[in-house]
């Protein structure tokens, strides 16, 4: 009996520690984001704002590997732990259609003059072109190229390169040039490699890594031809797309071990450990690269093919949860309004890894000179494009991650992989009520 009583008491004690007191007047603001440098920056900004208002801002950081799972799990509850979630651009459609996000059109429209149109469209608008916004751009990001400036400027290397390829060694402008440079630096016997790109099979790394090739070659994932009308076959599995896959796969030969399975962090690591000549990753990671490599690292835009340069967008927007009390929602909107101001954005970009879509800041000399990659970033924004933000994006991501992965591993030919993707896409779109031509 005594043991049982003790057990019950212990359980009650544990239960009581897990209940939180209800709040009458909001005193905290909980923001969920991924665990990375920009979240640290947001916390610092939040502390500043919170100090003015007497509010405690808590930025909860969740690793990227689990961020989406946790977000969707939490959003399934009646009341979410977070007031604001800095959700991935792709989640906007899902958040909007499920009613997890409240509409922020007024807020965003008020600042539309300062927001880069691509940032606003791809990070916050759903459906695309409707003028309805469900998030406010927080971290506007883009893919970029980091390369070993010291190797590129080494006279011995320059001479050897010129002798072999008949042109100067410099940061590649086109994909073909990039291939030459990667081949040139591929020296496995010396533990030196030419190229690393996102190929991770987890959430979306491989898709993000590949889509620039897909777009540069003139293909696309699908073509929206009208209201809920889409063309898939002949778009994603066109000959151009297959060529893009073949090119992408060939490039991986010049990568280090495991080049076909690099997630965001590993992709950076093989560059940071000094063995790889070039690395394509998101600008948010470049400050960390700079910290490790110092002046050895240079930064450039993602290359083009012919005249087509399309760069994958990254980034997240601040969305307000519909499952918290009205008072919390107003507080959240307050914070977002303050965040979007140009003055705040100027402070924002000073924090490590934080990037903006605010055109004033992007144009300013101050920003462009502040860090070696800033100017490149600012110029990249004009070429941005996103995967998709339809609510069923996960169902579209999964076949790409799977079949493209198989193409890289040799299990399927590029055309077969793309055909499989086209089939899965067709099924998904049809299931969600779209007409597939």
């Amino acid at each position, binding site marked *: 009996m005594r043991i049982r009583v003790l057990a019950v008491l212990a359980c009650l004690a544990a239960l009581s*520690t897990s209940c939180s007191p209800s709040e009458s007047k909001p005193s905290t603001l909980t923001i969920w984001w991924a665990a990375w440098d920009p979240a640290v920056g947001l916390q610092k900004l939040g502390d500043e704002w919170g100090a003015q208002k007497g509010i405690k801002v808590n930025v909860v950081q969740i690793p*990227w*590997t689990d961020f989406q799972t946790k977000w969707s799990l939490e959003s*399934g509850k009646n009341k979410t732990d977070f007031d604001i979630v800095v959700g991935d651009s792709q989640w906007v459609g899902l958040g909007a259609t499920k009613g997890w996000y409240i509409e922020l059109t007024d807020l965003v429209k008020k600042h539309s003059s300062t927001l880069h149109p691509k940032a606003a469209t791809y990070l916050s608008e759903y459906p695309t072109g409707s003028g309805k916004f469900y998030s406010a751009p927080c971290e506007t990001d883009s893919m970029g190229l980091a390369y070993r400036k010291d190797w590129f400027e080494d006279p011995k290397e320059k001479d050897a390169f010129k002798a072999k390829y008949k042109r100067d060694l410099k940061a590649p402008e086109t994909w073909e040039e990039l291939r030459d440079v990667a081949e040139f630096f591929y020296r496995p016997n010396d533990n030196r490699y030419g190229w690393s790109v996102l190929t991770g099979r987890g959430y979306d790394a491989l898709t993000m890594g590949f889509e620039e090739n897909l777009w540069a070659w003139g293909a696309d994932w699908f073509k929206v031809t009208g209201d809920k009308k889409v063309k898939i076959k002949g778009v994603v599995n066109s000959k151009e797309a297959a060529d893009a896959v073949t090119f992408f796969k060939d490039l991986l030969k010049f990568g280090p071990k495991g080049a076909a399975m690099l997630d965001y962090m590993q992709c950076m690591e093989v560059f940071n450990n000094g063995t790889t000549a070039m690395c394509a990753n998101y600008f948010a990671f470049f400050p960390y690269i700079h910290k490790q490599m110092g002046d050895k690292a240079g930064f450039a835009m993602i290359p083009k093919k012919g005249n087509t340069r399309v760069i994958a967008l990254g980034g997240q927007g601040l969305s307000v949860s519909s499952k918290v009390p009205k008072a919390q929602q107003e507080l959240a909107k307050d914070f977002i309004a303050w965040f979007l101001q140009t003055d705040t954005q100027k402070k924002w970009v000073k924090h490590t890894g934080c990037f903006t879509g605010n055109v004033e800041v992007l144009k300013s000399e101050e920003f462009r000179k502040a860090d070696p990659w800033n100017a490149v970033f600012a110029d990249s924004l004009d070429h941005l494009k996103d995967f998709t933000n339809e609510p069923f994006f996960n169902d579209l991501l999964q076949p790409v991650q799977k079949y493209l992965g198989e193409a890289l591993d040799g299990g399927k030919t590029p055309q077969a992989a793309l055909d499989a993707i086209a089939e899965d896409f067709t099924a998904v779109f049809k299931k969600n009520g779209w007409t597939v031509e």
Partner: protein
Amino acid sequence: MKAVRWVFIAAYLLVAAVPLVWLFVTSIKYDIDVTAEKVKWIPNPATPKNAPTVTFPPTVGQSWLLLNDKAYAQTEFPLIHYFINSLIVAFVSTLASVALGTSCAYGFSRFKIAGDKDWLFFILSTRFLPPLAVVVPILIMYRTLNLTDTMFGLILLYTVFNLSLAVWLMKGFIDEIPKAYEEAALVDGYSWMQAFWKIIVPQAATGMAVTAVFCLISAWNEFGFALILNNSQKAMTAPVIFKYFLGRTTGVPWALLAAGALLYAVPIIIFTVIVRKHILRGMTFGTIKQ
């Protein structure tokens, strides 16, 4: 023949021990030594330029000093918070499992319960169940009852998970206690409850201790539901936070992970040594006695 035997044992021991030794060596290195191109068995004592100087001056073994630095680990709370959660959840659920399991086992052992064979079969069959097969109903049930992200929720779950183990193990132990003891007590005028408390419990004390250790280990090591039921980090247990380390964008803090993992493993190693005579029994649900 004898030589072959020694070679085999030695070879196996070497291979089996290397990961554990390597774990310790990694825990006292700097991260830059961990990801170096050449294997380093002895950590380089010289301070690398990018060593974190968050709270303590960098020294060999600094990951042990930085274990509680939540900024370095990029977690919401210092590591000890999750260790304490694990401790509480494991201990309370073990207490409950052993208490409920012992009384249930006693009931089955001493009394005629309708359909007892079927009940015992049902209890055993829960061992074969992949816990994830019931994840959907449990998640929904917990959401409705607001038990997600609470330690009580996890405690309840682990109690039930370990209940089948506790019942089967304790039934084996109680079956070994001769009924003559209770019969004597009953003749002397004790009631059933008193007989249970005064006779059975002391006799079964070893058995309860062994059962408790296995329940503890099982709750200590559980990962799947701890991951799924905890979105916020308040009630999170240690294994989940270790998994979170893998997603750290500034690089997996291998040295810190090694130090934390070693710390987390130490109680288990101690318990293993304590119950080594009963391990086979515990792992086979009482089927095989050592």
